[in-house]
């Protein structure tokens, strides 16, 4: 009897603890996403709201049915068959993949140095990593224009040092996007890698040395494989938002860089084509779920192997 009472109590307690996050997700993620999906299946019209069919207030279930009848996949067909959108998607994926690779190359040594720093110094280094967040993202990206423009700080410094004679064309190129993205997303790559490295058991490196492995080899055979989960988490945290990035390509990348985030923005705000913009958003979510699940799969396989 007591067992059963504890069981019932346990089940109720579990629901009470699980309900708030479920409700939160349902209200703030699932419901808006359902609305976006519904708009993506509608047609653009010059009206308020700017899509049709719209639900006529007070028309009851019949009204709902009329809306469902009027939905189709026209917008998706348009996007998939339009080279411009396809190119924008591909460019976004390419830029995100390249940036993520650059972020690993830049972020890993930083995370490694942080994890090897004196324990007293480490909280300071982590805080320094977060300091940029105290300034608005927009302002920080805007500041890069001042650095990268032809008569900006970087070109002045390089010309002053005699490295170049003509200012480099950096702003409004893809290079500027990479610089901005690596700068802006660095903490999201460094911190997960740092968290894994700092928790790594130092005696593993001693064991490797004891068994005859020189330090560089131990790094390759022990440190790197064991930090893979941190690298994977960092890649996920960077790659996904970079694909949809709008501000950095818009401010630093110039007008000819086609990224899907900008396409979405212009469909929504310039063309007021909500259904097309929504369809782009839905496609983006679907595309971004692929790397997420691939990584989760790899991770769980890795964990299985580690278990």
């Amino acid at each position, binding site marked *: 009897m007591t067992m059963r009472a504890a069981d019932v109590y346990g089940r109720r307690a579990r629901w009470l603890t699980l309900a708030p996050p479920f409700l939160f997700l349902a209200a703030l993620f699932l419901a808006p996403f359902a609305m976006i999906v519904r708009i993506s299946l509608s047609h653009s019209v010059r009206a308020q709201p700017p899509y049709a069919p719209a639900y006529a207030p007070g028309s009851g279930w019949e009204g709902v049915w009329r809306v469902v009848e009027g939905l189709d996949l026209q917008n998706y067909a348009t996007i998939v068959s339009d080279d411009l959108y396809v190119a924008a998607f591909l460019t976004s994926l390419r830029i995100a993949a390249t940036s993520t690779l650059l972020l690993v190359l830049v972020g890993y040594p930083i995370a490694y140095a942080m994890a090897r720093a004196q324990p007293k110094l480490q909280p300071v280094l982590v805080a320094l990593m977060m300091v940029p967040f105290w300034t608005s993202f927009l302002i920080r990206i805007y500041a890069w224009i001042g650095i990268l423009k032809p008569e900006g700080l970087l070109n002045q410094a390089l010309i002053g040092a005699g490295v170049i004679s003509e200012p480099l064309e950096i702003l409004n190129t893809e290079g500027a996007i990479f610089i901005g993205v690596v700068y802006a997303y660095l903490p999201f790559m460094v911190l997960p890698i740092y968290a894994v490295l700092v928790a790594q058991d130092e*005696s593993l490196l001693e*064991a490797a040395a004891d*068994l*005859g*492995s020189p330090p560089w080899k131990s790094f390759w055979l*022990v440190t790197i494989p064991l930090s893979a989960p941190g690298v994977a988490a960092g890649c996920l945290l960077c790659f996904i938002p970079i694909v949809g990035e709008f501000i950095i390509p818009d401010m630093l990348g110039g007008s000819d860089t086609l990224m899907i985030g900008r396409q979405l923005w212009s469909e929504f705000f310039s063309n007021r084509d909500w259904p097309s913009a929504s369809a782009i958003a839905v496609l983006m979510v679907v595309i971004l779920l692929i790397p997420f699940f691939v990584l989760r799969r790899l991770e769980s396989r890795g964990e299985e192997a580690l*278990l």
Partner: protein
Amino acid sequence: MAGDVPIARIDAASRRFGGVTAVDAVTLDICEGEFLCLLGPSGCGKTTLLRMLAGFEQPDSGRIYLDGEDVTGIPPHRRPVNMMFQSYALFPHMSVEKNIAFGLKQDGMPASDIAARVSDMIALARLEGLGARRPRQLSGGQRQRVALARALAKRPRVLLLDEPMAALDRKLREETQIELKSLQARLGLTFIVVTHDQVEAMTMADRIAVMENGRIAQVGSPREIYERPATLSVARFVGDATVFAGAAQSDANGGAEFLCEHPAMTLALDVARAGALQATHLAIRPENVRLFPWRPSDQPNVIQGQVTESLYRGDQRLTIVDAGGFRVRVAQSNATGADAETAPGATVWLSLPPDALIPLTS
């Protein structure tokens, strides 16, 4: 055990961490084929000494020799010793086989030889059928054996073991101690084991080096250490002992006696024992104290007291007797036919045989 050159020699090695001297001018020779235990309480410097042999710590002064060669300053990956870590330090991303093969690969051994050696090691450590598992899929005892197999795979002439049994439960620990000892004898290797467990040290070691405060207090066989502890702290740390303070002097018959301060009494000493006349303390092992429920007429060094506690411990019982405000510990066998237990409160007489009194100087 023979050989002119010791396989490992620590020569006046010191190591300081900040203001603390972890190892203080320690000199110790380790013979080939010997099983040596470094025994001491935590913080006595035993692990630092072991790590100096492995190369993880460099001495601030003094030298380390392995096989006659000065290895001071040589990094761990170029030393001919292997270590088994207290935490085992198994590579979590590698299978049991890959863990064992790790050191062999570093030596550039051909793959077929590696496979043969790994399967030898798996058989030796009784890990058959577990070769493909990851460390996390193993029990504590299995992990310990993987760590041992990995450290032995390169056939080091000296194997260093840092608290190898610390993570095992008591039953398994006893079995493993016996196994480790017979393995060492069979392979003819030199084992240097760090432990804080005196029973473990006595079970396994040919020689024990007792350390305290960064120095070696005594080196000797388990029997020497237990029966003839060189210092007060060795007597207290190794085994159980009741210690009396006072002063020794010659008695009228050319023997020796000890004027005990507390309880105030005079004890006859065995004058043949080294240092008997210089003793400032006397130690006696609980199993050497004899307990009588009546005043014995034919026993030396008899004192009267009251039983305060009687603790049943299975194979033996520990009785604590209050003799004039001083607590004396008495161990008695619980073997069938042994004397009846004495209840707390009972008046008893204790006899302290002179040849069981260990003279010590502080």
